[in-house]
Structure formats: C-alpha cells, structure tokens
C-alpha cells in the first residue's frame, strides 16, 4: 500500500520519475498480477526489493538532474540502465529459485540432529519397558492374522 501511495504521490509531484518507476518495476508488477502461489506476498516482497535496488539509482539520478521527460527518454533509451534494472530483477528471481533449495538442505540437516536425540529417548524407553512397548515391534504381530487370512 505504501508503494502504491508513493507511486501515486509521485505521479502528481514528479510524473517522469513515476513513469520510470513503473517501467523499471515491470518484473515486480508481473509477479503482482500473475503469481497465484500461496507464498506470493513473500516472493513479491523479495522481487520488489531486488527490483527497486536496480531502479532506485536511476530514480535518484533523475531527481538530481530534474524530473523531466527528456531525462526519462534518455534513461529509457540507455541499454545499460535497462540492464541494471532488469538484471537486479533477474538476480532476485535467481535468489528466489536458489533459496528454497538451500532452505531444504539446512532443514534436513537440523532434522537429522533432532531425530538422533529422539531416537535416544526412544531407546531409553525400550530399554526400560522391553521391545513390546515399540509399535515397530508390535506391528508384525498385529499383521499376522491378516496374513494368515489371505
């Protein structure tokens, strides 16, 4: 909402800068309108941050040089500017692709440590109460009648 408010304000105060923002943040708008995944807001936030990091230097440059459509046309016509703005968005997309993979790996590592501790607890209980206390040991006995019925 804040972003929309800032954009709306800029449309009245400095329309060329607002136009640059709209053009530069196009990848973010694509996600905003296209993405329907449950994690859309997180992904949008990440994409917006990366995208804005690419657009923001040109918006500052335009502010400093005076917000005019001539300056806008110069930046829009600059391949380097597009490369920076869209490259930042691309970096965001790459990070969004890599981070779940990294997160899954880290989670797997943490889970194995936790499983080791739980296994110790289970072994202590089995040592005290015998193998019969474990469902893993009971299961084959419970399955016997079914097997014989077949």
């Amino acid at each position, binding site marked *: 909402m804040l972003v929309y408010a800032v954009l709306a304000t800029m449309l009245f105060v400095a329309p060329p800068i607002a136009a640059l923002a709209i053009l530069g943040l196009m990848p973010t708008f694509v996600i905003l309108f296209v993405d329907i995944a*449950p*994690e859309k807001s*997180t*992904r949008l*936030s*990440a*994409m*917006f*941050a*990366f995208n*804005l*990091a690419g657009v*923001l*230097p040109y918006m*500052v440059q335009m502010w*400093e040089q005076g917000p005019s459509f001539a300056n806008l046309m110069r930046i829009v016509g600059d391949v380097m500017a597009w490369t920076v703005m869209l490259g*930042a968005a691309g970096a*965001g997309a790459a*990070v*969004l692709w*890599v*981070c*779940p*993979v*990294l*997160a*899954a*790996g*880290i*989670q*797997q590592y943490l*889970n*194995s440590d*936790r*499983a080791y501790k*739980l*296994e110790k*607890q*289970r072994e202590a*209980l*089995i*040592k*005290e*109460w*015998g193998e*019969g*206390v*474990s*469902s*893993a040991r009971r299961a084959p006995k419970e399955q016997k009648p079914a097997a014989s019925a077949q």
Partner: protein
Amino acid sequence: MADADSPKKGDKSPPRSVVPGLLNGRYRIELAKPLVHLNSPCADAYEVTDLKEGPAELYALVHHQGSTHRGDVLAELIEAPIISMLNPVRSSVIRVKEGGPRHLVSLVQAPTGPSLAEIAAQHPISGHKLRKLIVPGIVQALAGLHSRGIVHRSIRPETIFFKSPALDGVVLGECFSCPPAAGQPAHFEPLERALAMPFGRGEATPEADMFALGATLLACHLGVNKKPAKDPNALHAARMAQGSFWAHSAGTEVPGVTGTLLRGLLNDDEGERWTLKELNLWLESSVPNRRSVNVLWTFARPVIFRQATFSDRRMLAHEFSQHPLDAAHFLRQVDFPSWVQNMITTELFSERLERLINVKKDGDLSSERHGDHALVARVTAHLDPLGPLRYNGISTTIDGLGPAMVEIFNKDDDMEQDILLHLFDSNVLPAILDIILDRNPVVSKQHQLHSHTVQLMRRTKGPMGLLCALYDLNPTLQCLSPALKDLWITSPQQLLKALDRIVDKSSELSPLLDDHVLAMFCSRVEGAEPFVEALIKHRKSPARLMTAVTKLLAFLQQKLDLGPLKNLSNHLVKSLKALLGDVKSRSRKRTIMARLDELGDLGNLPDIARAIDLEHLKYLDHQEFLEAQRKVSVLEQMIRKMRRPVHPSEPNARLAGFRAASAMGWLVLMVTMIVLTMGAG
C-alpha cells in the same frame, strides 16, 4: 519335619512326641494288646508299658482321625483330677506306628477291677450293695464333675468299674474321648435327647447324668445288662406313655428305698428329677419324695395322623419327623393356628409363633422338597421344644449340633451334607431356635453361638460356609484337609507351622490352602474372614490370588504371634518372583527382586506383604506401560518425520527459502540506498 514343637502363647494343643508309639519318651503303647472293652466311639484303647517302672496302671486311648473329643474336659481333668474317677494323666500328638498318621493319644488311669456290667451280668446287684458300694463313689465323682460344670454324659454299667476284684467301691470311667453321650445306648439318655443321633446328643445338664445313673442302677438291680429287647421306637413310645421308669423296668415293681431312688432318678421331668442333693439325702437314709407329673405333653384331643392316634405331642413330633412329606401335607390341610391352639390348650399360640412357623397352604413344588422338610422341622420344634432338632433325616440336639456335623462329615455323604447346608443356609436353624428359645433352657445358652455360626456361614457361603460352621462348632476337631491327613492339627498356630513345614516339599502353595484349611483359619482366628473371602474370590487370577495368599499369611503370622516362618517366606518369595515375570518395567522388577531377596530368608511375612502388593504393582505397571507405549509411538512418528528427505518444493522449505530471499532483497536495497546516500553526500 520338626516334630517337637514347643507350645506357644495361645496354643493349648497337646505336646508332640518324636518316637513312634512312645509317649513322653517313657510310655510305650502296646498296639498288640488292645483293650476293646475300654474303647470309645472315637478312640481305641491299648495297654501301656512304662519304660522306667514296668507295667503302668494306665491305658492309652488312641483317638481316631477325623473325630472330635471333649478337649476342655480333657485339659481340666489332667490339670485337676477328680476323686473316684479314671482321670486322664497326659495327652500328646504322636505317630502310633512308624510312618503312620499322627493321632492324639491320651493316657488314662486304668481300671483295677471289673466293670459293673460284668458283675451285674452274673447276678443282680441288691439295693443294699447299690447303697453301700456303688452310689457313694459315683456321687463323689459326679459332685466333683458337676461342681466344675462338667457333665459326664457317659454313665452306664460298662463305664463304672470296681476299685478292686474284691468289689470295694467304684470309680467312673473317662468321659472326654468322644462327644457327649456318643457311646450311650438311647435308653440311658433322657427322653428329650434319646432320639437324637448318637453324636448329636449334646452336653446337656447335670440332670442328664442323674438319668443315666438311674438307668444304670436299674439295669444292674434288675440284672438286665443287655440292650432292651424292644425295638428303640417301641421303647421310646413306652417311655413317653408310661414314663421311663416303668418302660425300663418293663413293669417290674422295685419296692422300698431302692424303688424310690430309681423313680426319682428316672423321672422324665427334668425339674422333678433327683439331683445330687436328693441322692445324698437318700444315702443318709432320709427319703426325699418328688412328685412325678407328666401332663404337659398331652393333646387336648387325640390327633389322627397316618391312621394312628396320638395323644402325646412328642410322639406326634417324632412321627412327623419319620414321615415329613405326609406331615407337610397334613399340616397344609388343617387351619394350623386354630388346630394347634385347639389341640394344645396349655400354651398360647402367639402371633409371633404363627409367623415363625409360617404354615402356607401352597405346596412346595421344588424337587428336593426342602420347604416341606423345613415346615415339618418348625412344627416338630413347636410340638416338642425340648426334643432334638429334626430336619430331613437329621436329628440332633441344639447343643450337639457340632459333633453331629462331624458324624455326618465322617460318613462323607453328599446328600446329608447338602441337608446340613440347607439347615444353616435356608433360615431353618434360626427359625427353629426362635421357636423354642423361650421353652428350651439349652437354647438360650446356645443361641448366640449358633447365631454367630449362621452369620459366619451366610457370609462365607456354600460348602465353604458349611466347613466354617463345622470348625466353629467343634473347637477340638482337627483340620480335615486331605493335604494334612497325616497330621493332627487342632489350632491355627499348629496349622500355620504345619504349612511352613509342608510347603518346603510342595511345588505350589495355593493347593495347600484348600477349603478345610481356609475354613479353620476363618472360624478360629478372629479377623481372618475378609482375607479368606478375598482369597476365595481371586482363585482364578494368579496375581490377585498370590496377593491374597500373602496378605492372609501375613495377617495370621502377626495375629497368632508366631516367630519366623522361613519356608513359607521363601516359598512366597519364589512364587512372587515367578509372577513378577509379568511386570514390564525392568527397573521396578530389579528393585522388587532385590527387596524380595532381602526378605526371603527373614521369615517375616508381614514385611513381604507390606513390601509387595502384587495386585497394585501390576495395575501400576500396566498403566505406566500404556503411557510408555503412547510416548514411544509419538517418538517414532516424530523420528520418521525427521528422517524423511526435505524437498525444496515442500511448502515449508519454499516459504523459508522465499523469506530468506526477501530478507536478502531488502538487505541489497538498504545497501543500495546507503551507497546512493553516501554518493549524494
């Protein structure tokens, strides 16, 4: 097996001897020399040799297994002998034969002269001799007995002995070796007790001794020392119709002071019968004269039953008991309250009696006809309140019920035992006691005892209850358990010690605690009943049974104040350990096993009971096992979950990854802004 048990506090049982056939290490029982004429219904007599001083003037009575005797009388006479009587001198429980069962053996002063029966069989004894030689000795003995509250109940020509072959004075024979009057022929018994079964004749009162003395003197005086030729029923009818004196003398007139003596002693009215006081007066030549009245038992009008006419209530009661089903039919036909009031005009038939006797018009439809038998028993009790209790073939006096039960148990007749069960369990006995309470002096003394027994039996129920009643009413009866058949055990102390010895050779303890053993504990140890009930209730559950056994034995050891019972303790520990196999908690099992090992050799059963409540333990163990099972199940689910491979496409991983990406994005943005700000600056 340790034979020489020293008596403990509260254990009044006789001492035990080690060498078979040898009593007190000194008196040898000569099994090859039986003294048949001194036998009693519950004991066999043998000669005795004193190993120190040669032939002893004693004889041994070897009591039969499963029999009962008058233990209180035996103890009393050993402690303080009575003049003019053959007193017991000692008693002991010994093995009579090598490897044979144990018996109670009593040593009794041996008679030194012939019996009165032997002399009377040769020629009748004159009135003069009766007065000078026989009566004084008997009076002396009876005075001693009666002053101590002991009724002899075994006076007959065969149990009176001359002091020497010169026939100078007499002594009375022993009277403790069997239940009161168990060996008496019926015609030596007072009328009201003559029809009871031999073991069920009861302790009675001193007047019963006076009657037996009268019958004895009459038999000796007339020279009739055989059983009367008449059949018992006919003789009984004659005694009721003409009085015992005339029936016994068969119409022979006995003139003079001897006749007065015999009429006085043979008076059928207990209140009118001569006592020792009149007998002493008679010995001093004064002639007391007591009137004989016998009108109380006559009906206002004769009663016709089974085509016979009865004018005597007692005779009709006897006939009813002989034909109970016909009697029940007869009683249901008449309007009983009106009938009985019209027939017995000397007594008021109260509403209370009507309610107690409760004659209903509806017949008894049960196959056993217990209702009919009970009805007839109630009516006969009302007609003959001084007579025996008659129920379905059983005839016993109220104070002779205990020994009568022993007689029935010795017959091993299930049918009669079933009848006994009904007598106690179906309100038959309490109703009869209430009916005759005001009219039978014996009942008022016995009422509390029998009420206690009936209550005990109702609580313990069934055959077990009957056994409780058996031991309750026969304090000297030994334990009849098949497992203890070779032993002579009469007290709970002995029983617990015997169990401690036997259990060492037995693989299991529970079979030793059979119904007889439990009934004996139940009836002879105050407070044992709830423990016995718990044991019976849990016989099918090993853990609960073992808990109940432990609690019972612990209670008994504490209550009976016995020392260490190491064998029982070790056996309990062994059994408890075996049952601990079911306990699932290993640490708990280890702790308990260690505790049991500590307690096993100490022989202290209460400590074991306190340390291990197996039932509670198993309950606790089961509950905790279920809880552990639940925990393990949860843990296993979690472990499975933790071990599963995590894919980047999983929502959690994706969300975490996107959050991380977002954080990185904002970090980059912030760095950009800082750089721009610094560049602008």
